């Protein structure tokens, strides 16, 4: 959910753009992180743990904890909490540890 009115802050959002989450088209704003756009769209589960397959979500939001690794435009292990959203980006849930090309 996005905050529209705030007593102290004003949010200057970029242009509205489309991106894809597991093939589904979603909207976000240019300049924000992929994690922010997914969160605003109500997506809380970003992946599953390797061995126990437990759901994983956003935890630190500043690139420290690796809880939010996803495949972005074919590249695995992207920390989506610090990666900026771009128009047409393909964001996918990662299976396993990912491979180097």
């Amino acid at each position, binding site marked *: 959910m996005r*905050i529209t009115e705030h007593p102290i802050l004003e949010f200057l959002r970029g242009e509205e753009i489309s991106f894809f989450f597991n093939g589904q088209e979603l909207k976000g704003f240019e300049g924000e992180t992929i994690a922010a756009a997914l969160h605003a769209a109500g997506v*809380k589960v970003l992946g599953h743990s390797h061995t126990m397959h437990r*759901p994983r979500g*956003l935890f630190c*939001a500043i690139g420290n904890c690796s809880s939010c690794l996803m495949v972005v435009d074919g590249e695995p292990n992207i920390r989506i909490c610090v990666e900026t959203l771009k128009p047409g980006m393909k964001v996918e849930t990662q299976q396993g540890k990912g491979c180097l090309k």
Partner: protein
Amino acid sequence: MPKVKDIEILVVGGGPAGLSAASAAANLGAGVLVLERDGKPGGQLVKQTHKFFGSKKQYAGDRGYQIGNLLIEQCENNPCVEVWTDTTALGIYEDGVVTAEGQGKHLKINPKKVIVATGASEKMIAFPNNDLPGIYGAGAVQTLMNVHGIVPGHRVLMIGAGNIGLIVSYQLMQAGVEIAAIIEAAPTIGGYLVHASKIRRAGVPILTSHTISEAYGQESVEGAIICKLDENWKPILGSEQDLKVDVICLAVGLSPLTELCFQADCQMKYVPELSGHVPIRNEYLETTRPGLYVAGDVSGVEEASSAMVEGRLAGINAAYSLGYGEDVAPKLQAEALVELSELRAGPAGQKTMRGIMNLMDKGGAVC
């Protein structure tokens, strides 16, 4: 082979300590490069909407993000300071070369002095299902809310009644989110009463001697069981309460981000009062590795106000050791030391002081 960048002083981390260090050193005439892994400098200050305490010298009365903008401006306006954003320091080597990754490139920097101001990371606590989506560090909630303008959910259980727990709870309320309760395992509220009172006046319970027994939910948090603790911090059977919340926010402290100090072979020590392993350093913040200084949370978790003064002190000292500011540096150093002891004069500061005494006692690095 990539070219090596020569610089007098390299600052790792562009938060309150790093930016203060950079402008202090540059004001004395030294050339400074700041590495910041984020796309924008300012560190966690840019997420702070509350007004700071302290004295005018430490920007009391200004909100955190305003102070952040001021520090960024000071560095931008100083021709001796260069800031590389989206750049992460990777290692500090025996020959003094520092490597970094920036925009997909492997970079090498050859500084004369290094100031490590990497900050801290959030602590986790153990309870069943603490890995469920919907459980966040308090800093993550601040980032989502105050940078991106997105709320994490509808109803929050806040764990920890230190200043961060209290301030982030109040910020959530300002953003229209309900706080089910703030729980604190200790028998008393750790943060300032001025923050606690604002929250209590709004009807939010602050439950001391309470902890979380478990979180539950299928794919993400649907609720939490909390319970009361006795005087030995043991759960009291039958005191459990079920809170329907979709967010659990952890404000249970920070750990210094000291990987670079360990890697650079600084002598380290575990000091509980400073929140973890910290590099042994002298009064002027130089570690056991000559020419490597620390400032801010990496040298012991405190607040942004003292991080800024520590940054200034490290910056002055690094520049002075290179021959800059011979006439003014000693006076500036003394002023910074006085400010630090003023900031640490309160009850919270006593703990820090004990930690620093503990750190310097056996370190063999005391000036």
